[in-house]
């Protein structure tokens, strides 16, 4: 016969154990709050800031300048003028820009004479900002057309939409580098947080301290292992993304720095978290607090420039942002300059974190 008293006794036992388990409490109560704060901030829709867009105004008359001025006044686009002498499409590619607006040289004269003229908008269908830019330009074009003195005349200004990338990039093309970055973060991070706190608890590190093995050697072996794993998962994800989902990504040796520096950074960071935490449970909590926001704010699943401005600023201090951005630069945009910048940031950061992890981690009791 079912005993309510026994149910209550066991319930109390379980509840006490649950409440004393920091990991359980974190995932039950704190983690959902973190998720809602993160996603609420990202998708709250406000404060995204104007989208920076390069504009090449080839028009020598006043109308081109007026057009640019109106674009600026929308508050949605922040136009940056590009010199007329440059190849505009190449300029956009060199600057990894998904959007660009080109006003033709005969803009003013054609409009004045009522002859059709087109404003060219370069965009990336896989980028959510492009949709916004297209809408804004369309609106401004319509506005200029309505200004015509002749109400029954056909619109003079048209919008010519061209794709910025050499092929039409799909969302999967951006997801592959994002998920590679995701794996580069999570594998070493969760593992090292767990290992370093567990080994501290079991006093295994103390025994290792009595051998010639140094902390640097121990951490280096972990870095090598996770570099190997990141290479393997890169290959697997690229193969699956390409053959199953038709992803178009560029494979190049320039990907390698990110598959090496990323693991170096996150192995060291995981070690640091395990070092400063006093117990296995608190290490897991701290590890999740560091990892999950980084996962969602670094451009893993959606572009950073779709987030509110303040979150974009936060993204730029996250190491995973540079891993994913670097992979995008190589695999999608084929841009060496920004890629080298990402490598430099990661290299400096990884060296500092590695040195800190080795220095702060104590193998002995005191």
């Amino acid at each position, binding site marked *: 016969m079912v005993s309510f008293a026994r149910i209550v006794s066991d319930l109390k036992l379980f509840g006490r154990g649950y409440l004393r388990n920091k990991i359980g409490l974190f995932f039950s109560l704190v983690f959902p709050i973190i998720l809602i704060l993160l996603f609420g901030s990202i998708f709250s829709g406000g404060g995204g800031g104007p989208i920076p867009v390069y504009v090449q105004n080839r028009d020598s008359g006043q109308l081109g300048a007026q057009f640019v001025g109106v674009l600026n006044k929308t508050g949605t686009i922040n136009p940056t003028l590009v010199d007329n002498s440059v190849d505009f499409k190449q300029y956009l590619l060199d600057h990894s820009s998904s959007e660009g607006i080109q006003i033709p040289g005969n803009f003013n004269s054609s409009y004045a004479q009522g002859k059709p003229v087109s404003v060219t908008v370069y965009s990336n269908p896989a980028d959510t900002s492009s949709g916004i830019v297209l809408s804004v330009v369309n609106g401004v074009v319509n506005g200029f057309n309505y200004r015509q003195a002749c109400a029954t005349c056909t619109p003079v200004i048209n919008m010519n939409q061209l794709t910025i990338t050499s092929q039409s990039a799909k969302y999967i093309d951006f997801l592959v580098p994002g998920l590679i970055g995701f794996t580069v973060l999570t594998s070493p991070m969760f593992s090292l947080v767990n290992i370093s706190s567990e080994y501290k608890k079991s006093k295994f590190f103390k025994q290792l*301290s009595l051998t010639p093995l140094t902390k640097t050697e121990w951490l280096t072996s972990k870095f090598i292992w996770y570099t190997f794993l990141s290479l393997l998962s890169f290959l697997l994800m690229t193969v699956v993304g390409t053959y199953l989902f038709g992803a178009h990504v560029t494979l190049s040796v320039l990907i390698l720095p990110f598959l090496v520096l990323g693991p170096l950074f996150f192995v060291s960071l995981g070690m640091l978290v395990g070092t400063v935490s006093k117990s296995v449970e608190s290490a897991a909590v701290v590890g999740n607090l560091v990892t999950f926001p980084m996962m969602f704010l670094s451009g893993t699943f959606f572009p950073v420039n779709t987030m509110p401005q303040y979150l974009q600023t936060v993204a730029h201090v996250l190491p995973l942002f540079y891993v994913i951005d670097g992979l995008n630069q190589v695999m999608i945009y084929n841009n060496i300059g920004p890629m080298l910048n990402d490598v430099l940031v990661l290299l400096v950061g990884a060296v500092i974190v590695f040195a800190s992890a080795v220095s702060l981690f104590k193998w002995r009791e*005191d």
Partner: protein
Amino acid sequence: MGELLVQNLSKNYGEVIALNNVSLRVNTGEVFVLLGPNGAGKTTLLKIVVGILKPTRGTVRLDTYDIVNNPEDAKRIIGYLPENPSLYTGLTVTEFLQFVGKIRKVPGDVLDVKIREALKTFDIEEKKDALVGSLSKGTKQKVALIASSLHDHHFLVLDEPLSGLDPKTQRFVNQWIAGMGRKGVTVLLSTHNLDIAQEYASRMAIIDKGRIVAIGEMEELRKLAKTGSEARLDDVFLKLTEETS
């Protein structure tokens, strides 16, 4: 092979004095046993000797190496068994011993022979391919003992090596320890098992509340405790530790 010299060793944890001006010498090849109640400071002393803890004051010298100033050279010649040894549970016995031997830079061919012989000596040959995590406590202790002695060591420091072992295994381990001493290895160990200490120790020290209360061979301890010449070690121990409380 070497001498262990502990001089004026003290260890404080804030207000708590774990060790208070401890001095002792262990000669080459001696089996020196530390005895004392729980919390007396035995483990603290052993941890300082092997370099896991730093002393507040005093020195520890193994051969010519100071454990604080020259830890790498000192650790190279120490074999250590902690009170509850941690082993890689995901490795087999052979894999774990190979890992330890390679870290200790034991040459490959020598290591293979040493592991084979040690498994035979400790009668755990059939466990060589078993995962460490699946072993009984006694077998794990044997594996840990083998691991502590694979390299070329002059000192063997063992913290409660008999803890949790059945009587047959305890006797085996004690005979093995005595054999180490006969080979010239200097052994320092702590134990609660007074019978075995009486049978195998060259000399003993009784430590209580962080101080050495008595040190010497069995006869010397009996004289210090002012017990009869036939007094057992447990009587001597109780007498000496009662006097300090």
